[in-house]
């Protein structure tokens, strides 16, 4: 039996906000997104064959928090549903596998998180080694700052290159109405700002963001019925590096490089990268071998809004839109998870039939 091709056919994203008027179960952010994306495809929730979500109990501060989010679906009669305690890009991977089995022909993937409910930087310390690192509570900005200085002092990148990434992101963010931040600026202006966690300045770090996003996948003929130009997933891979932070070369991303080879990223016109820190954009571009002709994170990327557990899925959605709208032939969406780019996922999408 032939394995069906799978495509992204729909994407919707909630406004990226510093603090959303919402509960940690995501319902308030998800209800309007489901409505928007299903309306756009002339579908109802009963047309969805598989639901898969990404979120975190640590962020919500309660066990099985994703169960309450299922209310937003209206899960009666019972639905085919799953969840990952990861960015929803990994839920998309699970849904992609499900569609490839031929068991269902549509899937809706969603991610959500209310980072503002707690102290995000401190919460993220809990993803570090529980014996030798987490008991010291180094926060996520600290870990990124240690990585940034390693690269600066070994000549892998410069502060100016980092500032140029941030300036590009902020200018792009100004064109994205759902972005949390964005304005006209340049590297000189950003380099004049004080450091937040030496050598990182505030603009080098993704803001704390509440948000959610939704991607609809469909297989083969069903995708063609739903959308004239589906964004066919032609390559998808995820790889994980050692959980021991200090055993890795933090100035490179070997897992992203492996994903790139496995997914076949040559020739992409647009790459939406999930880089929560400016220097990580540089690490990722090199690992993916992206040339100057590639448009990188034209949505503004994570530096203009990084809703935990949906930002990676949103990168895939933003990249897919370029194909859905006929603006690009081949694109990639990237997602990261864990400290300092520990885990990476690459999804390559192409137009045509």
């Amino acid at each position, binding site marked *: 039996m032939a394995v069906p091709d799978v495509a992204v056919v729909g994407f919707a994203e909630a406004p990226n906000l510093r603090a959303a*008027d*919402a*509960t*940690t*179960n995501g*319902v*308030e952010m998800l*209800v309007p997104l*489901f409505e928007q994306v299903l309306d756009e495809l002339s579908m109802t*929730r009963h047309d969805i064959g598989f639901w898969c979500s990404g979120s975190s109990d*640590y962020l919500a*501060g*309660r066990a099985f928090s994703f169960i309450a989010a*299922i*209310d*937003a*679906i*209206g*899960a*009666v009669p019972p639905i085919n549903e799953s969840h990952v305690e990861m960015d929803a890009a990994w839920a998309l991977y699970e849904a992609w596998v499900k569609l490839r089995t031929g068991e269902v022909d549509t899937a809706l993937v969603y991610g959500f998180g*209310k980072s*503002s*409910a*707690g*102290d995000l*930087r*401190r*919460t993220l310390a*809990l993803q570090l*080694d*529980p*014996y*030798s*690192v*987490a*008991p*010291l*509570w*180094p*926060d996520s900005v*600290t870990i990124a*700052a*240690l*990585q940034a*200085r*390693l690269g600066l*002092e070994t000549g892998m990148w410069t502060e100016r290159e980092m500032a140029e990434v941030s300036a590009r992101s902020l200018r792009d963010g100004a064109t994205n109405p759902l972005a949390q931040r964005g304005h006209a600026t340049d590297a000189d202006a950003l380099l004049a700002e004080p*450091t937040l*966690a*030496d*050598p*990182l300045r505030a603009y080098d770090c993704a803001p704390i963001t509440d948000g959610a996003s939704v991607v609809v996948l469909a297989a083969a003929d069903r995708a063609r019925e739903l959308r004239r130009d589906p964004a066919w997933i032609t390559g998808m891979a995820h790889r994980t590096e*050692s959980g*021991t*932070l*200090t*055993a*890795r070369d933090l100035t490179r991303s070997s897992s992203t490089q492996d994903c790139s080879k496995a997914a076949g990223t040559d020739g992409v016109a647009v790459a939406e990268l999930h880089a929560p820190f400016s220097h990580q954009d540089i690490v990722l571009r090199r690992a993916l071998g992206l040339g100057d002709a590639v448009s990188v994170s034209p949505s503004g990327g994570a530096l203009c809004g990084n809703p935990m557990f949906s930002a990676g899925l949103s990168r895939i959605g933003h990249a897919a839109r370029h194909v859905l709208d006929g603006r690009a032939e081949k694109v990639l969406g990237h997602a990261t998870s864990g400290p300092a780019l520990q885990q990476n996922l690459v999804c390559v999408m192409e137009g045509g039939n």
Partner: protein
Amino acid sequence: MTGTSPPLSAPFDVGFDYTRTLGPVLGPFATALRDGRVLGIRGTDRRVHVPVVEFDPVTGDALDELVEVSDFGTVVTWTWQSRPSEGQPLDRSFAWAMIRLDGADTPLLHAVDTGSAEAMWTGMRVRIRWADERSGSITDIACFVPADSATASEPEAPAAASDAAPVTTVVTPIHLHLRHSASAQESDYLRALEQGRLLAQRCTECDKVYIPPRGACPTCGVPTTEPVELPDTGTVTTFCIVNVPFLGQRIAPPYVAAYILLDGADIAFLHLVLGCDAAHVRMGMRVRAVWKPREDWSTTMENIDHFAPTGEPDAADETYAHHL
């Protein structure tokens, strides 16, 4: 009606003491820390990893060759923590650094106490300042200090206590502080409770009446919107007799926890049934709320102290059969 005032929110702390067994690699590492020594482990490629790893980070091979390394090391990279947060090694501003201890090939992440960022640089020599009291944890290293700083005022690491039992577990207390928000619908419900009213909402798609009202009807996936005032009388749909004492229990067992379906509601909620012998509580029993004194009311269901029998005849099965 919903959302006329901002949603209610309140501080919410969660905590748990994670207790982990250590095994043949992490156990000796923790034992050595308690005794004021640092162990590394030799990887497949002969590199010495500090902190120890149970499996080689590249090949995944199980590792077992423990190697003692020095208290002294070199800063590989660093950053500055200007405002320390809860649980971090120092309560004044300090540097985080990756430090390659002499004899090790991979660095250890810890704090360096230099007083100012100007005194930190990559390549600087540092040494361990041991904690006065040690239990077999990474926090037995209080922090690092510049290698040439005075030692006179500091306690020396006592020699290994050879008679002390090996460390086999580590306890890591984890405490997170959140601000929990109620939904707009729950906020309306809680504000009504403060006035002694029971405010439900109807789902406009399936007509079900929910108390508390919901951000999304679990059947229809749409927010409940139409307000419905409910009386404080209802029916016991199901119940259990609590005989087991537990930490924090406020009533002496035996007592009854029951699902109560308020008249006009489509969903029952859990509350106490008191005011009669536990053995007399039954499915279908009619009950009424017993409110606390008005001056004690706030935005909580605890305004209702418990439910008590009304003495009416029992409700017919069919009035609650669909709500079990």
